[in-house]
């Protein structure tokens, strides 16, 4: 799969976005720690992590016998540079701020 396609595919799933949010809040977690608070089987979490790893959104390192998972935002920077910044204008930023203000802090 093309790397950009892999990133968007990985981000298309709410459970996978939740896993990224967990790692953003607390980086370097084991599979067991990631399974806590995820309402799904260990096997399902493993599969989601594989998709995230294939998209390079999650990197892993072994520390002794533990495999730790880290958020890797580098591909998101590439998405930003390719798909956001190019289209960005000052006006869009102002609109976005207004939208956030009106909608409160809620975000997905």
């Amino acid at each position, binding site marked *: 799969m093309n*790397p950009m396609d892999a990133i968007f595919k990985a981000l298309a799933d709410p459970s996978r976005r939740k896993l990224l949010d967990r790692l953003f809040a*607390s*980086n*370097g*977690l084991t599979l067991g720690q990631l399974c806590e608070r995820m309402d799904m089987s260990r096997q399902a979490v493993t599969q989601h992590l594989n998709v995230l790893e294939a998209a*390079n959104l999650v*990197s*892993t*390192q072994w*520390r002794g016998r533990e495999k*730790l998972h*880290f958020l*890797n*935002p*580098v*591909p*998101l*920077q*590439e998405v930003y*540079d390719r798909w956001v*910044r190019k289209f960005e204008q000052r006006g869009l930023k102002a609109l976005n701020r207004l939208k956030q203000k009106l909608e409160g802090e809620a975000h997905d």
Partner: protein
Amino acid sequence: MTESDYVYVTYIASTPQKVWDALTQPEFTRQYWEHDNVSDWKPGSTWEHRAVDGGKVDIVGKVVEFTPPKRMVITWASPAERDKPEAYSRVTLELEPTGSMVRLTVNHAGLIPGSNMHKGIQSGWPRVLSSLKSLLETGKPLETWAKAKSA
């Protein structure tokens, strides 16, 4: 322990030697990082991260390990905190050829949680690595660096 530990990975269509040179030679680092990385790169020597614009030193540290073009370990601190051993974090860069790409891994460990350095590197590394990839693959760095500074 791992809360202040980061692992960034990028795949670059290049050779390990080119990526290595791009990380260690000022004439390359200044193109995508807007800083010169200056050192003789001998274990035990110091290194400095100097702004191209004005020459201000923004990061200082020591070279711990230097094995071209595979692995280097450097320490990392703000010059204002150069006399505080606890302020030094540790950066390990590893290059691995994978097919026609190089997998570059940056592990930044031992940051003080909540410190300015801790916050800074989280936005810094993704932009630096993205810009490095762009420079080596297309000949052009990203403008994000300059944009972020003027914003």
